[in-house]
């Protein structure tokens, strides 16, 4: 004989199944007569005496609510079928698939009666426009406020461009390799097991310099001079320099790792609070 617990479990499963069926009929606009309301009510009645705890009683109430919604849909379905607008959706779908689109469009134009409408400016918009116009300064006065910059052409030297930071005084690749050497030496001196904490390498006396070092480090990693080792649980990030630049094959999927180098984090690092 089935134990009481097993019987209750079976009841819950049956009610859940009824709820799911009713929900799918409601949501997918299926034929509500697919639901056998009498049988479902019988199931609800069969298990009702077993329910003791509030959760089970709620489940019972929800099942009844869903069945009631389906009964409502059945009523609407009958009403719709009796109206002149009723068409079998499958028949219509089949016919639409067999017609070409020009024919469908032509048919639509025969039953489409677009309204005519003329756009017009309202009194309110007109008064807004007048107010704007009256408060607008004459062009001469507006131009006075922002006189155009006078520019003259002239010659410049490479040193000046370097000073303006338009050009770098050494080639970028050269600078990158110098930075790579610096990383390797840093790891040798202060690193452990061939790696160094990310912030210990990029961190500098000023925030500007720190950002610049983070920028250069990102190129070291991208171009295969070094790699990142991330320990997510410990929230630690290490830099591991390669002895030779690694050329990545085209099939390798590269990933971007965002690392925040904000001012507050730099301050934390300065205070020794950041790993």
């Amino acid at each position, binding site marked *: 004989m089935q134990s009481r617990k097993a019987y209750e479990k079976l009841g819950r499963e049956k009610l859940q199944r009824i709820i799911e069926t009713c929900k799918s009929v409601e949501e997918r606009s299926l034929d509500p007569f697919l639901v056998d309301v009498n049988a479902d009510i019988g199931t609800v009645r069969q298990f009702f005496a077993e329910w003791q705890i509030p959760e089970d009683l709620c489940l019972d109430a929800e099942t009844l609510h869903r069945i009631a919604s389906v009964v409502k849909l059945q009523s609407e379905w009958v009403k719709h079928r009796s109206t*002149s607008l009723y068409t079998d959706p499958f*028949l219509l779908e089949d016919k639409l698939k067999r017609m070409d*689109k020009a024919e469908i469009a032509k*048919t*639509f134009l025969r*039953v489409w*009666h*677009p309204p005519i409408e003329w756009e017009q400016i309202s009194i309110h918009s007109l008064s807004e426009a007048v107010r704007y116009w009256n408060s607008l300064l004459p062009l001469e006065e507006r131009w006075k406020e922002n006189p155009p910059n006078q520019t003259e052409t002239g010659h410049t030297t490479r040193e000046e461009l370097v000073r303006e930071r338009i050009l770098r005084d050494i080639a970028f690749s050269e600078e990158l390799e110098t930075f790579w050497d610096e990383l390797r030496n840093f790891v040798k001196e202060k690193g452990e097991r061939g790696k160094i904490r990310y912030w210990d390498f990029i961190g500098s006396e000023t925030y500007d310099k720190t950002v610049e070092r983070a920028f250069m480090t990102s190129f070291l990693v991208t171009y295969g001079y070094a790699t990142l080792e991330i320990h997510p649980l410990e929230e630690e990030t290490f830099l591991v320099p390669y002895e030779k630049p690694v050329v990545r094959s085209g099939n390798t999927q590269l990933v971007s790792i965002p690392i925040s180098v904000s001012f507050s984090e730099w301050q934390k690092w300065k205070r020794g609070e950041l790993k």
Partner: protein
Amino acid sequence: MSKRKASYAAKLKRATHLLFFKRHAKPGVKGWELHKALGPDYPKVLKIMDDYLKNLDLQVKTVFDEGRQIEKPSLEQLDRARFYVALRGELVPKEAKMIGWRIDDFAGLAIAIAYIVSKKGKAPREDVEGLLREKLPGWKVGLNIERYIRYGYLTQDDSRQLYLDWRTRAEVDQKALIDLLLSVETKKK
């Protein structure tokens, strides 16, 4: 001109101003606005106007709040309804193109409306998209549905169910559309 006739002529002019010029986001005027501007006999003024517009292939159209045509509406039902001046006859495809819509767009709208009507006014968006994909390029299907929603022909709820919106109710003779679609196919057989 008799005093009565002069009064109706003035009301006719006022009704023309109200109905022809767009005053709200949606075209047309609510019955209560006409009631306020023209008085309780505004349905008669609209009837005169409709007769007058017949020669121009235009009509005064009434869209009831209830979403269906009412044979003998009460004044209260008319007050809640919306009135438009709309085309009485048909547009030929050449004229329709001048509106800025392509044949694809009209066909897509006709399919969506007909399908939703056949599903009792509500259909899952995925099903409508699936049917549209039979006729339109895949990339256009989603864009077109968004366009129909934006223009007020269709509306969508949070569970991605599509319904007919006010513009379809105002502009499209749904029963005639279904009948015509079915009869076109019958003729082909």
